[in-house]
């Protein structure tokens, strides 16, 4: 399966949106998201305004629309289920259209910001708002080694497929567990080597 979607569109780091300082972007995004969630549906002005801001930002950012649409339309079964239930529920305080609208606007905001801001800058903003160092380090390391581990997992999966001739259910689960277990072991060993590398350059 393709892991291409993992790669972001930071490539065009030339648009004004890309260049905007991360603190501003994240602050504005947060304000938009919180506002949208809290605002009652009657405040149409708010929603129109947010829509306009997002629309302009998308145009300025030069992110491909198809890319955005694809990200936006990915719906998990959970989301689908909840929306459906809500639609058939006379008692719900929010109708499904309201939920969908709010959700969509917030989603768009996050997709926009995350694709125009290098992750390192996001981390710096987290540090600014006093997120504990241990958590920031863990997030940084996760992001750094995400792709490494996904690659390893993908290679193991392909190797497993190459040697799977009889698709039996039980075998599938057992070999899956072996691969996942192996992934953890490798991750664990790599963590130790990283620690050694940190010490080698003077980490206390």
């Amino acid at each position, binding site marked *: *399966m393709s*892991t291409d*979607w*993992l790669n*972001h569109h930071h490539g065009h780091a030339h648009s004004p949106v890309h260049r905007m300082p991360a603190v501003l972007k994240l602050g504005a*995004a947060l304000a938009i*998201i919180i506002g*949208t*969630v809290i605002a009652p549906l009657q405040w149409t002005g708010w929603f129109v305004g947010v829509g306009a801001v997002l629309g302009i930002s998308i145009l300025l950012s030069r992110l491909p629309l198809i890319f955005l649409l*694809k*990200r936006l339309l*990915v719906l*998990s079964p*959970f*989301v689908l*289920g*909840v929306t459906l*239930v*809500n639609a058939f*529920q006379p*008692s*719900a305080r*929010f109708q499904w259209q*309201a*939920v969908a609208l*709010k*959700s969509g*606007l*917030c*989603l768009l905001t*996050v997709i926009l910001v*995350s694709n125009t801001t290098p*992750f390192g800058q996001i981390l710096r903003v987290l540090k600014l708002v006093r997120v*504990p160092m*241990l*958590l920031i*380090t*863990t*997030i940084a*390391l*996760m*992001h*750094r080694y995400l792709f490494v*581990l*996904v690659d*390893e997992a993908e290679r193991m*999966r392909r190797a497993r497929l190459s040697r799977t001739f009889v698709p039996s259910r039980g075998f599938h*689960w*057992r070999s899956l567990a072996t691969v*996942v*277990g*192996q992934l953890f*072991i490798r*991750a*664990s060993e*790599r*963590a*130790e080597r*990283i*620690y050694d590398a940190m010490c080698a350059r003077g980490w206390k």
Partner: protein
Amino acid sequence: MHIPDGFIDGKTALVTGALSATGVALALRRVKRELPPRKIPLLGLAAAFLFAAQMVNFPVAGGTSGHLIGGALVAALLGPSAAVVVVTTVLIVQCFLFADGGVTALGANIFNMAIINSVGGYIIYQPISRWLGGIRGRVTALAFAGWCAAVIAAIACAGQLAWSGTVDWSVGFPAMAGTHMLIGIGEGLISALVFLAISRTRPEMIADTSEQSRRGMGVIGYGLLLSLGVAIFIAPFTCRWPDGLEHVATKLGFEHKATPSLIHAPVADYRIPGMTWAVGATAIAGVLGSLIVFAFAFLLGRMLVPKKAPEPANS
């Protein structure tokens, strides 16, 4: 069960945010105290592992996570506090980088998947694994705990959705609990199998980590948080099931004092006709289900770990 923005309302977001922040702060403090410096990078790598394992083996379009969480597994491997930090990290990265899970819903998602799933799972795992003993005991305990953790997290999620008025409890609870009683089977099974695979290749990794978690796990702190969570998101709704209880309460003049006024469910008395039975049925299914799942977990343990398997030194 990553809740997106807009599905839970402001007050729910605030309350869950406060609970999660407390829980994560607690976990971070414990990890700093108990985890040897050598293992600090392991937190980040374990988070990357969870993500990679979820994503590559259960490919779901475009990056929304598969349904498995993995909190109980990580708790069994690294201890409950480390698990909280690890799963929180995964959720934060998923939220900001992949828009999987809303920003305002982060508090709820962390509470459900990092705290309830990991700590709750561990609370169930630890005593059972101790009681049964050996690798077989751990595998059994993890299979069961994985299932329970998935179900309980789902119930809390339903509670939050109901509290926000998005999905009525009488529909949400049966739906979430019901689906996760099924999904939980996968969670429990995979957690147990992966744990077993690791213990077979690297038994010292298993022995290593469980040693740490024995040094007490902040029972009071976590216990309080979990109880609060249950009190806020589950109890007010469960108080509505037993018609009989209400009846008794009226008789004794307690009716309006039954539900604390502080925690006031928004859709007070409306019930979707015909759905109340579903709530009761789900509750019963849950109880029966847990017994059945435990029995299966026990059999699984027996099947996977033959009696002659070499037991690690400190089981």
